[in-house]
């Protein structure tokens, strides 16, 4: 066992550890019978449906808009790269490459937040923190705009915006990932036809 894995984590750290949620969801869904699996898929599917627009609007789209300038500046180079790739490989990779790079700009912070929530490597910690801060800053505009509709008090508006921004930039995507994991493994359990485990007793 790695020494770093043996660290006693606080409740807060474990709360943000999406990886452990995913593992727990996978373990819970692995031996589901068809009926509970179906129930889980439906319920978590509804939660996902509710959260996805929030995530898209307040996290993905806001980050997309914020990085528009960056994408605009990088667009000629990317199109040139994609054009060369098309001519060499004779494959329609241009649109794909462009899409990947553009989406990468947007999703990179979120992916880092999801992948390394409890990592103890200094450099990865820095990247993770920068990702969280960047995501938070990019999400602020829409969160603050929504918070402004809740109250006329300026100070209270900032507090609301901060809390809501934290929720949409960190919380929503964590819950979304867990829900999607449950859905995936629930569907797999449904496709397998339920649990396939038996208990064996060996008698000497």
């Amino acid at each position, binding site marked *: *066992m790695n*020494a*770093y894995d*043996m*660290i*006693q*984590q*606080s*409740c*807060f*750290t474990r709360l943000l550890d999406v990886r452990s949620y995913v593992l727990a969801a996978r373990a819970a869904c692995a031996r589901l019978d068809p009926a509970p699996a179906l129930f889980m898929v439906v319920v978590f599917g509804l939660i996902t449906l509710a959260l996805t627009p929030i995530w898209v609007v307040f996290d993905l789209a806001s980050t997309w808009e*914020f990085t528009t*300038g960056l994408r605009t500046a990088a667009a000629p180079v990317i199109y040139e790269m994609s054009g060369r790739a098309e001519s060499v490989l004779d494959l329609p990779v241009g649109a794909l490459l462009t899409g990947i790079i553009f989406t990468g700009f947007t999703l990179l912070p979120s992916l880092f937040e999801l992948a390394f929530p409890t990592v*103890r*490597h*200094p450099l990865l*910690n*820095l990247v993770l*923190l*920068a990702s*969280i*801060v*960047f995501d*938070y*800053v*990019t*999400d*602020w*505009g829409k*969160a*603050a705009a929504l918070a402004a509709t809740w109250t006329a008090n300026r100070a209270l508006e*900032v507090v609301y*915006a*901060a809390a809501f*921004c*934290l929720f949409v930039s960190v919380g929503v995507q964590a819950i979304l990932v867990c829900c999607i994991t449950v859905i995936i493994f629930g569907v797999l359990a449904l496709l397998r036809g339920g649990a396939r485990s038996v208990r064996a007793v060996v008698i000497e």
Partner: protein
Amino acid sequence: MTLITTDELARGACLLVFGSAAGMCTVSFPGSPIWLIPAAAAVGGCALTVPEIRREALPSVTRAVRALLPDRNRDAATDGAAPPVPPAAPSGGRGKADRAPPDLLATLKDQPHRLVIGHTRGGKTTLLHKLATDWAAAGARVVVCDPDAAPGLWPGCEAAGHGDDRAAIAQMLHAVRAEVQTRRAQRAQGVRRFAPLHLVIDEAHDVVAGVPGALDLVEDIARRGAKLGVHLTIGVQDRQVKTLGLEGKSAILSNFQTVEMLRDADGRRIALLHDPVTGERRRMDVPELPDPERLIARSAQPPAHAGRTGGAGADAALLEALLAAPPVTGGGAAAHDAAQATVCVDRPPGHLTVNVTAVAGAPVGGRTRALAPALRDAYRQAGAAGESFRAAYRRLGGNRNDALAAWRQGRAVSSVSSCAPFPLSGNENGVIPASERHENALRSCGRERRENAENA
């Protein structure tokens, strides 16, 4: 389990405060990169809450700040202000600060018994020392059995074992055993609460193996001591049951909170806690603890529990008198002022043990001990008798410089009649011819030169 650590709280605060500021900048100044400043502050603040980054970055930040400070300090000094306080010297990680994160120490203090495993320089004694002195400061009775104990090392504790004094350790353990029995009897009478008594045994592999009855007491306390308020803390160099003499009784170790003192890949001290029930291992950072060695002080009096017992007869009295005697000549410190000495006679019978844990400072001028008057006379006589200094020194010994001085005095006295060994011939008028005078002088000078060469 901790709800949230201070670092995490600070990280959240940094993110909320500086991140919100950066977000407001993006809204208030669209298209302006000014948001990068609070965003960088957020990232930097968050980064400093990560212990690994803090450990790496803080020295650089401190150096940079210090590089900026001297000019200001110089200006302040020239303005008549008080001179700046010099920064504390770095101590290499040990003894840097007494403030310790509560996690490891609190976890260990919560347990009834503790087993601290660590090799030499692993921090085992430092951790034991911190625990023991904390308990003593809190008013608990702390009994320490440490074969490497030294004066002042265990403040507030009853320490035994100075200079590998196993007899004193046995005596101390006997007192603890008596206390356990007393408490057990009190418990039988209905007493349920007892003042905490901590028995701390460092280098337990030596103590348990070398002190009769120690193993039984350790086993008794580990099994039943917690009910009596008697707690055991053991420091040992490995976790083998054989080391502690617990072959066939390894289950007793489940009564201990085992903590292993290690170093990680970066050389930092870490503690690995073994859960006695689940077998789960948890890593904890070792707080910066004060170095106990700095507490060791020379004492004018031997320790109260020094082994002066047992058959103290004429030999013991003689040794004590010698240790307390002032030096023969000035320049040296009295042994009892500088040395920490204990005398243990007839334990085991027929043996005499003297433990001297400090050495008196050398007298001024490099002399170690003045020559005794009788010896000085012997050297004078040797010099007067014409015996070479080398031969006399080989025969008599003593302080060489004093011996040479005494021998030269004797030689000088004899030089008055230095011609005596060389009979003067002379003529009948008593006049020595010039050639004979010259020959005598040469013989005398030659002998002196030979002796000087020998002495050199």
